[in-house]
């Protein structure tokens, strides 16, 4: 076991736990935001850099601070480690930078995006971004693509979190989509539009933190906040059959996995992630296909509370003052 202190909260966790997982055990404001990490996908995390934190004390054995900010989703804790997240101006500033980078080429088309209202990037930029954009350059654009006949890829919105690739690698035996090209031009693609007919491919939609992968069978262009989520299940011989139904009146608009507090698919009783199959997701669009369990409680702001924004704002103001002073000193 290792004792770790994050923003003044101490907790004991098993060896090998990451800083983000330890913080999630503590809960509340001190949990670093994550865009690419997904606890149930192996080797996820490390790409987006939103979870950067500062390790002010490495461990009891070696108390030296770590020289650079580290990604909380990959860095494992050591006994006696001390970490700063929202108590470090340096971390908040770095995160603001990351948010700006993630938004640099993002189309900001929230008004027409299916994900609006349940988009991690929207939450993140609200909580951690700077006001206004500083880029006047044309944003990068890609053509719209189909990944099979049920999934649409709006690559312009993609933040290259690699989650969908990990789903394809780890859930689907024959991967047909992946990352093409390099750097600025890198994109998720199938190169030639190959159909994805794997039973599990639809889970890509659920892991996508933004509105880049969407369900083509989502029948009405309806805002998620107008639809009413219900927990429901059916007897499925492929998957666990436990889903969230998004209904309006009698109509099932779409079917998704059940997302929990960090917007990850919840585990089922057997402790395994409740991934759902494409039949449940795309084919079962009648209420009569399902046994309704009851309304689903969606707590969008359990991670980032309103109060948190105010705190952050204050910290940021302090920070920009410091920055000005620092920069003056630097330029002299």
């Amino acid at each position, binding site marked *: 076991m290792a004792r770790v202190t994050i923003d003044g909260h101490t907790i004991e966790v098993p060896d090998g736990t990451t800083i983000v997982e330890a913080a999630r055990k503590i809960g509340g404001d001190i949990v670093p935001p994550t865009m690419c990490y997904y606890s149930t996908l192996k080797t996820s995390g490390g790409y987006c850099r939103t979870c950067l934190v500062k390790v002010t004390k490495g461990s009891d054995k070696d108390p030296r601070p770590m020289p650079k900010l580290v990604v909380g989703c990959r860095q494992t804790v050591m006994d006696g480690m001390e970490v700063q997240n929202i108590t470090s101006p340096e971390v908040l500033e770095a995160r603001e930078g990351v948010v700006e980078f993630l938004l640099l080429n993002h189309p900001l088309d929230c008004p027409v995006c299916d994900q609006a209202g349940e988009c991690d990037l929207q939450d993140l930029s609200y909580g951690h971004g700077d006001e206004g954009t500083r880029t006047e350059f044309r944003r990068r654009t890609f053509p719209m693509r189909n990944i099979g006949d049920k999934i649409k890829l709006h690559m312009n919105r993609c933040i290259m979190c690699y989650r969908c690739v990990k789903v394809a690698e780890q859930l689907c035996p*024959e*991967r*047909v*989509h*992946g*990352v*093409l*090209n*390099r750097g600025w031009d890198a994109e998720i*693609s*199938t*190169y*030639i539009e*190959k159909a994805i007919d794997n039973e599990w491919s639809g889970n890509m939609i659920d892991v996508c933190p933004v509105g880049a992968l969407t369900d083509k069978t989502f029948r009405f262009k309806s805002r998620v906040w107008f639809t009413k989520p219900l927990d429901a299940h059916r007897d499925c011989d492929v998957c666990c059959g436990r889903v969230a139904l998004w209904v309006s009146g009698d109509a099932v608009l779409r079917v998704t996995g059940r997302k929990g507090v960090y917007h990850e698919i919840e585990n089922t009783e057997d402790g395994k992630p409740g991934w759902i199959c494409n039949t449940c997701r795309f084919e079962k669009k009648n209420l009569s296909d399902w046994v309704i369990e009851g309304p689903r409680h969606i707590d969008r702001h359990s991670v980032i509370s309103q109060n948190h924004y105010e705190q952050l704002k204050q910290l940021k103001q302090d920070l920009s003052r410091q920055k000005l002073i620092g920069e003056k000193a630097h330029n002299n």
Partner: protein
Amino acid sequence: MATNKEIKFSDDALALIEKIIKRYPEGKHKSAILPILHIAQAEFDGWLSPEVMDYVASVLKIQPIEVYEVATFYTMFNLKPVGKCLIEVCHTGPCWLMGAEDVVRYIEKKLGIKNGETTADGMFTLKTVECLASCGTAPMMQIGETYHENLTLEKVDTILEEHRNAGVRRTHWEKEKIKS
């Protein structure tokens, strides 16, 4: 165009590929992908069509997407047809201090093409590339496996003339080096 021909490696190429795959431990044959794609470019008209990439996937027994992912990452793989003679002019800092822009502009004017284009006769394609580790002999360019260094405009004339007269396709892994 390659599309109508049957896509199949020559016997020499297959023998070489088999030799290369043996360098890597059992089950790690995917490691051979970069050399094999170079050989594929040499065998199939200097570029990698989707059909050629699918064929390479079948030779290596991996998924086609794994080949696409790799082929689109590395700049030496041409995903569109190129001229017989791909002229790669280095335009990074040190070469550029020594007149790389002159070389590019001169070739553009001489051949009547822009960077990235191919001449109508399919002979030349011009492409600017990043530092080729020949900065002490700048400006420089590469055609096939050959480095042409300390370029002057006269030198460029001579080199292009020689290639036009020879009329053979040049690739990074030169075709004659596939035979062993």
